[in-house]
């Protein structure tokens, strides 16, 4: 085990009011590793991702990025957050900007790159993601699949070291899921470290190095995809996978 740990979560707890949503999460993501989070709706997948990116303050625990605790109280989260990319279920593109500006805005505002240079790099990224024809379009003129690819480009423009993906295909029509998942495959091939919440079990099985089953705010079981999907050791995991199978999602 010589690969360094990129992101480590230690004893993360988080409550909203009286409901404990995360109840002691421990998870280590090695550099270049792809981990999928599966679990029922409400099990805390989104909250875990939002906490990892400091979008949601945690109640207790440590979030180590290259061994450095970024959740330390009093730290300015902005310079740390830029090192972690996040892709949302609902794309969240900026509707008042063209596609190229959506991708260029991060480097321009956060890294101080000049407008022309940021646009040039944005254009290259968009070409790489097969969106060269939509560079000057606005988000509402595009299909969901295209929008989600732009969102990925927007995140990649910041050259993140880890990416958090929150059910990035759940809002898409079935025929558009593939084009987005292809991008994720490419990211993995490029060695991107990813933490990926998903309901796409087939894809989780294909892409993950490790799968974590979240249940009521805890990681109940984890392991390589083959083992976890074929021989889950926990009854809860079996139950969940059975329900997913019955729903025809596997």
């Amino acid at each position: 085990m010589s690969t360094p740990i990129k992101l480590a979560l230690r004893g993360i707890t988080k409550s909203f009011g009286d409901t404990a949503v995360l109840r002691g999460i421990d998870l280590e993501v090695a550099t270049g590793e792809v981990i999928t989070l599966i679990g029922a709706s409400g099990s805390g997948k989104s909250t875990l991702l939002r906490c990892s990116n400091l979008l949601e303050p945690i109640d207790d625990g440590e979030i180590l990025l290259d061994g450095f605790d970024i959740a330390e109280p009093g730290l300015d989260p902005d310079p740390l957050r830029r090192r972690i990319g996040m892709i949302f279920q609902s794309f969240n593109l900026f509707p008042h900007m063209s596609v190229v500006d959506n991708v260029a805005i991060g480097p321009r505002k956060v890294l101080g790159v000049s407008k022309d240079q940021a646009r040039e790099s944005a254009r290259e990224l968009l070409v790489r993601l097969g969106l060269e024809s939509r560079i000057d379009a606005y988000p509402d003129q595009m299909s969901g699949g295209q929008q989600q690819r732009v969102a990925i480009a927007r995140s990649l423009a910041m050259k993140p070291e880890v990416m958090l993906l929150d059910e990035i295909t759940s809002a898409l029509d079935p025929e558009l899921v593939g084009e987005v998942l292809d991008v994720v495959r490419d990211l993995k091939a490029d060695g991107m470290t990813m933490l990926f919440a998903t309901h796409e079990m087939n894809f989780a099985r294909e892409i993950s190095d490790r799968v974590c089953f979240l249940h009521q705010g805890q990681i109940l079981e984890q392991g390589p995809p083959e083992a976890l999907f074929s021989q889950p050791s926990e009854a809860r995991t079996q139950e969940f996978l059975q329900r997913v199978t019955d729903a025809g999602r596997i």
Partner: protein
Amino acid sequence: MAGPEPSLTRREVYERERRRRGAFIGATSTIAAITAVVVLVPRAPRWEQVKQSFFDVDLLRESFPDLLRAFWLDVQIFAWSLPLIFVLSLLVAIARNSRSPALFPLRALAVVFTDVFRGVPVILTIYLIGFGIPGLIPSRAWSNPLIWGTVALVLSYSAYTSEVFRAGIESVHESQRAAARSLGMSSRQTMRSVVLPQAIRRVIPPLMNSLVSLQKDVALVSLIGPVEVLRRAQNQTSLAANFTPYVGAAIIFLGLTIPCTRIADHLLTRERRRTGATAIS
């Protein structure tokens, strides 16, 4: 020539026929209404007197240039107030939306500001500030009622307008902020580059309505002294013992407010169409 072209579908022919009938009915009823007004109004009792004291054409022609000159002052007050209101109300709205605990005093101040100036009638604010402040300041240069009248107008309107901006800012979904913050943008950058541009776009139609009422309320400043169009019309009216100059002033206001109202309506319709709501006939 006549008859449907073969390329038209049955539906298109029907729609076209329906439009034609609609236009016909509209034209007929308009003509009927105009005829009724033209025929009936002059028969109304005392119409001659009304015509003489409100619509004296010669007096109107005579007083109009003078009124227009006085109206220039209204335009100036308006032109000064507008950018000040825009900036002040935006600042107040941003202050009310700030979340940092360090900014609590600012937030509280913004709340007090909107509560007070929204709750007091514009005219009362103009009296209080326009008469009150010059009384406090001995310097002659600063006792100009024009300045303080404009300040009062700006304060009153900023209180209203800041609420419009605030609603606009709150209407931008939280997920937009999350997306911006996840790129590493600070809360200030997020507000400037992501939230405000969307918020302002959304509130332009309601802002246009405040703009129209500001155009009219400028005349209130005359109550503390400055001779703008309303004051001018008042003088002329009492000199001529005839209300026509008031009508002249009204015409001048309408010349400005009607186009603005139409633009506001147009913007609102466009915004509705953009957000996907269609009118059901």
